[in-house]
């Protein structure tokens, strides 16, 4: 009994601020919706938020289809969130998930199309591995540059995102364009598609993503490699002094981060999209940042955060059909969630919460690494 209560208290300690941040974000977004309803044909509508949130919820969880859609949308976010979160642990801000995702998706699409006629047991794993390696390679570049030359990963990964879009467009056009289509794209993936476990497209990528949650958690908490990653994130000088190699660890972390993002791209390609064409976007890239923050870089937290964001995506179509609220409200809600997490002081004030763990403290390294150190006299 008291065991249970203790467990509940522990969960509350960790999850209360994120949960309250979500609640507060929805409340504030409701004001936005009400105020902006003035501009719609229906005029001021105080109940519009209820309608919008209602259909959002119904779309995401109201039916079997909805739940499957939520999970399908969550799977790449889980992996993307893990990618960003792993970087955070090492004091790295990987904004390059978008590019790594695209490279992974592209590699999976190309290999998948090549092996379209091979048996699925061969073709799907091979395409997955191709995607993972593609993403890893694309994560390696900024990691190596950061470790060796100090070029900040925030800038290099953004540049690589832009470059990836352009270079992949070229690659589709000039290297791997499939014949028989009216526009440039890769071929059909055929047997390389991930097996569907349940009707309505609940594909194998979903359990795979969950598996990675536990794999990353194990890596971070139980292994010396995870300890090195965290130590380099917390205090790179102490890491060097302890015999770790920050250059190696930084490169490795970005590579692993890219690997996860690449797998996200691969499962999205092999489980949902089916072909690569120029113009494909990777909204997963930026959503992953919010997921990692909301999940406070903890793999389990990321799992739940990804499901929440997946639900947004799954519920959005119904919200757009049934109400006139633009889909961008979801971006607004996401931004508000991040705002309230970053400034958890606001949440604490509003809900009078005390003495729970600050959300961003373990991420405090992020801004610090921008400048690469602490100021004179600034360390207490």
């Amino acid at each position, binding site marked *: 009994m008291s065991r249970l209560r203790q467990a509940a208290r522990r969960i509350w300690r960790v999850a209360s601020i994120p949960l309250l941040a979500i609640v507060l974000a929805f409340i504030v977004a409701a004001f936005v919706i009400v105020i902006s309803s003035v501009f719609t044909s229906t005029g001021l509508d105080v109940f519009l938020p209820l309608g919008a949130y209602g259909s959002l919820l119904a779309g995401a969880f109201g039916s079997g289809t909805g739940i499957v859609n939520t999970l399908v949308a969550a799977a790449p976010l889980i992996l993307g969130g893990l990618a960003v979160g792993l970087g955070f642990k090492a004091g790295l801000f990987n904004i390059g998930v978008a590019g790594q995702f695209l490279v992974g998706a592209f590699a999976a699409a190309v290999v998948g199309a090549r092996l379209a006629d091979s048996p699925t047991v061969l073709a799907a794993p091979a395409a997955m591995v191709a995607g993972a390696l593609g993403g890893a390679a694309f994560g390696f570049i900024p990691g190596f540059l950061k470790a060796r030359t100090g070029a900040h990963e925030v800038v290099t990964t953004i540049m690589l995102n832009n470059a990836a879009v352009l270079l992949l467009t070229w690659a589709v056009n000039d290297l791997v364009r499939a014949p028989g289509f009216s526009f440039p794209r890769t071929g059909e993936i055929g047997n390389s598609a991930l097996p569907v476990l349940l009707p309505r497209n609940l594909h194998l990528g979903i359990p795979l993503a969950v598996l990675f949650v536990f794999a990353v958690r194990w890596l971070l908490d139980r292994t010396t490699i995870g*300890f090195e990653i965290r130590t380099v994130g*917390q205090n790179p*000088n102490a890491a*060097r002094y302890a015999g770790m190699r920050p250059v190696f660890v930084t490169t490795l972390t970005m590579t692993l981060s890219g690997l996860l993002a690449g797998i996200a791209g691969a499962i999205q390609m092999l489980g949902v999209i089916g072909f690569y064409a120029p113009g494909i976007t990777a909204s997963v890239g930026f959503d992953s940042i919010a997921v990692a923050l909301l999940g406070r870089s903890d793999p389990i937290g990321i799992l739940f955060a990804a499901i929440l964001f997946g639900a947004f995506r799954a519920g959005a179509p119904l919200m757009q059909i049934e109400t006139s609220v633009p889909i961008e409200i979801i971006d607004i809600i996401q931004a508000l969630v991040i705002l309230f997490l970053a400034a958890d002081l606001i949440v604490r004030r509003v809900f009078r919460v005390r003495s729970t763990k600050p959300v961003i403290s373990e991420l405090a390294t992020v801004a610090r690494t921008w400048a690469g150190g602490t100021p*004179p006299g600034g360390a207490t």
Partner: protein
Amino acid sequence: MGDQPPVLEMRGITKRFPTGTLANDAIDLEVRPGEIHALLGENGAGKSTLMNILYGLVTPDAGEIRIDGQPVTIHDPADAIARGIGMVHQHFMLIPVLAVAENVVLGQEIVRPGGILDLGEAAARINLLAKKLGFDIDPSSKIEELSVGQQQRVEILKAIYRNARILVLDEPTAVLTPQETREIFEVLRRLRAEGASIIFISHKLDEVLEIADRITVIRRGKVVGSRRPAETNANDLAELMVGRAVSLRVDRGRSHPGASMLEVTGLRAKNDRGQDALQGIDLSVRAGEIVGIAGVAGNGQEELVEALIGLRKPTGGTIRLGGHDLTSASVDRRRDRGMAFVPADRHKYGLVLTYPLDDNLALTRYGDPPFAGGFAGIIRNFRAIAENAIRLMKEFDIRAPDPKVPAGTLSGGNQQKVVVAREFRHDLKLLVLDQPTRGLDVGSIEFIHKQVIGRRDGGAAVLLISAELDEVLDLSDRVLVMFRGRIVGTFPAEEAQREKVGLLMATGGARA
């Protein structure tokens, strides 16, 4: 001068930090015009807090401050400056990339219309003040190009430029050579002669006895006594500070040096700015021997220890330990060979402040058995890590509620003990100590010194680097003097007299 009315009175000053620490508990302090008033106390006694309150950096919970008999409230440093209070902080408040003149005038700039700086006028004023105080300083040079002693002078200039009548110096001599300390004392005496009042904080009892007119001792946030130098001595003061008798001199005992353990020949290395910091260092340390390196900070000591432990790549020469060439070995490999290192900056290198004590106590051996094992040796063994922590905490008297508290919540002295406990392994071959007791109080110093002797007697080779000349002389079986990246002198313990070594430190001898 004792019967003049006090310029500064602090009455019943109380401060409890949000963390619960009662740093100041109804402290009373009186300072008279033209007086050098020393504040003494252990680490964490509350000296800096009291001075920060005076300077408006910390808001007291209770108490009253009077200046010239008038009650005043000091909200922020601007208030303090306006009331003639100047402070030289424990950690320098200088901006390394700015020029001396910019640092001095900052906050009270001399400007032409439109807010345009007049640095020429500033330089002129600074030169004038410097001459008055007997300094020699170039207002246009950057702070980062100055020696620690010169930086100290800039700090004093800053205060005088702001017309400070009450000057607070928080551990100003902790990083100075005896030579530099003497020069600073000259300046303080001049200022006193002109009627300024000076509050002087130090852990060095000899200095306090030499310079102070009056001494106030604080223990655990309370004033426990006030003395005149004439009526007291070092042992008396130490006992008052710590609350028990302390032995100020370690009994080094006899050393029994064995085979040569560390052999360094022709070692060269560059500093962070790419200049040659080590110009061919030759030294050797034998098992069961403590070799001390004396020298003014900035003569390559930092680069030497970093090169030894593997944090800095040598550009020439060799490092051998117990016959193995480790010149270009990794940090990890050196540790495997029995090297250990207590760094000067425990926050920068020694600890991960956010980690719990148990992780910190295994930090430098995290990948070795028994702390890691399993397949490929990468699985961490949490039981071994916890047991190690409990054992070391007992052995080294580390005061913390449990092994899971973050290292950052410990006091400076206890943090240092964490580093020492971890590095003083039983299978040590070479122990490199860089400023092992910097900023620690006499009680903690006593403890650490005993541990060092213990390791030496256990057969370890010990290399001690300290800016604290007394520490080097007290502990070392052999003293080397380092000057501009070279070893310029070697003294057996019995021939190492303070004056001789100090002179060599300052001049580098004939070779300089």
